[in-house]
């Protein structure tokens, strides 16, 4: 059977908070601190529009799946929102020009994940002329058509996973969907882009949820938001009135916004190991993704910009609406630049984000945060022995024994890690690493082990 019925402690432990049903995370997790400026700092700051870039580099791969085929060549004039990369295969989505101007070339760029890949470089003409052919849907009844539009609009999971949204919404007929879930947890410290989207694009986010729910034929529509964003809960609850959408407050605990964790917290169900959320009757989309769906269906607009939280060791932490393809260096500059002593850029949140070592790396659709950090290296990670304190076991939301995975990987017993300690079920959320008093790089060693077993 695809889904597991769980005892009641997995589901809704209800308490009345803000007049709403409050749901606890069902398993473990941590409370990460926010040293040097976190949510409180940027969460109250309205989204600012970033300066129009003079040049952008649009990577042909901004999603999990096959790279796009370029539709333009150097010298071509392009319009804002014009499709410049054609999806190649089902697990691929289109990319679009985020400025109007002239294509300068197709050049390699370092992507947020560290890999080098081709990007279409466009010099802006400063006019931001929209592609006039972009049109919204006039009929919302044909799911196949809507899914095609979502794919054409280049929509991927904007919460960080970059999983093509049309794939998520393409649910086979034999999988009834009970819950369409809008993920507004934003459990990563520092980040507040989703928080601001819920406050400033409330209607669009809920509209996206309704469209997606219609596509998959979901019986219930639920929004999950962490309790540390009471204003967003309030705004969403008001906007959701009369729409048959439940807005539920979730305990503030990382990784509450993890897809599988959120499903368990809201529905009491678990997604079976190795299966997809749809197998448990659930589809989850992020709030920014939902707002993008709404714009794509109503107005035909593709993703050409997104909200990014710029925080950490920068002079003026803020939320910026930036064009896709802008280099991270200019984004940091617009937040006042890095504070002296900072030595690391993190793309995404501090728990799961990637190190961005190249200032020329373009912002892609799934990057919700540009964090500047101070990493003291060895001083922060003395790497002593594992003292078997058990904190990692207590923190692991996947129910694993991280200390064993670390030890097995360290000794290169990768197969044993896979066969005896459920290596593949690690979601790499970083809770174990975060709580380890010996500062062991547990997640890194788990990644090494995962890589080793898949390579063979």
């Amino acid at each position, binding site marked *: 059977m695809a889904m597991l019925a769980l005892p009641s402690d997995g589901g809704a432990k209800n308490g009345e908070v803000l007049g709403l049903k409050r749901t606890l995370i069902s398993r473990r997790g941590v409370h*990460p*601190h926010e040293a040097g400026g976190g949510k409180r700092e940027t969460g109250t700051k309205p989204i600012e529009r970033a300066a129009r870039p003079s040049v952008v580099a649009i990577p042909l791969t901004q999603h999990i799946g096959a790279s796009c085929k370029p539709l333009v060549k150097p010298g071509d004039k392009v319009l804002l929102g014009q499709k410049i990369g054609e999806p190649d295969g089902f697990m691929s989505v289109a990319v679009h020009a985020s400025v109007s101007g002239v294509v300068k070339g197709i050049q390699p760029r370092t992507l947020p994940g560290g890999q080098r890949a081709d990007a279409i470089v466009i010099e802006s003409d400063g006019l931001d002329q929209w592609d006039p052919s972009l049109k919204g849907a006039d009929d919302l009844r044909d799911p196949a058509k809507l899914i095609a539009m979502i794919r054409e609009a280049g929509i991927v999971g904007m919460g960080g996973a970059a999983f093509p949204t049309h794939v998520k919404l393409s649910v086979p007929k034999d999988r009834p969907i009970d819950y369409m879930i809008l993920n507004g947890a934003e459990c990563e410290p520092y980040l507040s882009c989703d928080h601001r989207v819920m406050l400033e694009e409330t209607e669009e986010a809920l509209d996206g949820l309704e469209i997606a729910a219609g596509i998959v034929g979901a019986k219930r529509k639920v929004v999950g938001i962490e309790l540390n964003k009471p204003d967003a809960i309030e705004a969403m609850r008001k906007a959701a009135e009369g729409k048959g959408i439940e807005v539920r407050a979730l305990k503030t605990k990382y990784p509450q916004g993890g897809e599988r964790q959120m499903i368990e917290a809201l529905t009491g169900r678990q997604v079976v190991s190795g299966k997809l959320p749809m197998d448990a009757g659930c589809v989850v989309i992020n709030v920014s993704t939902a707002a993008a769906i709404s714009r794509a269906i109503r107005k035909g607009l593709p993703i050409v910009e997104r909200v990014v939280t710029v925080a950490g060791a920068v002079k003026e932490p803020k939320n910026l609406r930036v064009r896709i393809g802008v280099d991270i260096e200019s984004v940091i500059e617009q937040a006042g630049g890095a504070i002296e002593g900072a030595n690391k850029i993190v793309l995404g949140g501090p728990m799961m*984000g990637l*190190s961005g*070592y190249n200032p020329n790396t373009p912002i892609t659709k799934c990057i919700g945060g540009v964090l500047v950090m101070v*990493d003291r290296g060895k001083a922060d990670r003395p790497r002593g022995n594992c003292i078997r304190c058990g904190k990692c076991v207590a923190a692991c939301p*996947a*129910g694993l024994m991280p200390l064993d995975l670390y030890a097995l990987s360290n000794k290169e017993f990768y197969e044993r890690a896979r066969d005896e300690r459920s290596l593949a079920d690690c979601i790499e959320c970083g809770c174990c690493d*975060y709580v380890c008093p010996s500062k062991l790089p547990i997640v890194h060693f788990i990644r090494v082990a995962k890589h080793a077993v898949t390579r063979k």
Partner: protein
Amino acid sequence: MEHNGLRRVSSSPHIRAEHTIASMMLEVVIALVPAAAAAVYFFGWRALIIMSVSVASSVAWEWVYNRIAKKPQTIGDLSAVVTGLLLAFNLPVTVPVLIPIIGSFLAIVLVKQFFGGIGANFLNPALAARAILMVSWVGYMTGSAFSAAVRGVEMVAATTSATTAATGAVDAVTAATPLAMAGNYSLVQLFVGQCAGSLGEVSKLALLVGGIYLIVRRIISWKVPVLMIATVFVAKWISSGSVNDALYAILSGGLFLGAFFMATDYATSPVTSTGRIIMGVGCGVLTFVIRELSPMPEGVSYAILIMNLAVPLIDRYTKPRVYGEVKRHA
């Protein structure tokens, strides 16, 4: 912008909790302070000397071992301080100063460092050292060693010497143990610490304060100490039919010291939630069995040492349920 300064690359997560091994060990030391103070109060300044020697020699042995073995220096993690203090807590106040020095060598070098240092030892260092000292220097570790005057309880010495005279030297070893003498005290005396015993075990009040501190600060789980004490209580209650006897059973001897500070030792206790339940109950059952059925004076330390040996097995069979895992035999 100064880009060269922003090129550090590391694997996520990029933030970490502030606690370290040293900060957690410091919490344990803080939690041991009330019991150490009680030891000085009840046994006098000699208690302080024994504790100081034990701590200093523990740290020194670890330092020396790391130097000789050419290992990174680890004395800064404060675990040797904890081991030294706990070893002293297990000694009677009358021991010669050489005993804690030998004991700390056994604990630190033989039991801990030889097996890979902190986290890698499979027996509780302080308890293993105590067990070796017990069989090596019986006279220093048991019997009349405990009859030293305890502040406010003159009758202890009198009772004990009377027993010794009456039963002869061999029996005195077993008869004149703190546990056997427990009946000489009121429950309140036992709780506060006005009783004979090794340095750190007498004041259950002080140990309880320290233990609660560790639980509140999330350094230890409540499961092991609470279940160990509760198991001894229930077992005695059932076997004797008397709540009073059960209270005497939990307040006498080293049960509180063992339950809060020894059975919870990270390296030698289970890491899983279910495993900790088994550890607590197992230590309690073994303590009761050894106390009731063996000629040994006290069961706490052997109970914990035996359970230490079962820890790898306990962890293996109490793995938490993995998220999304399907039962094989549904």
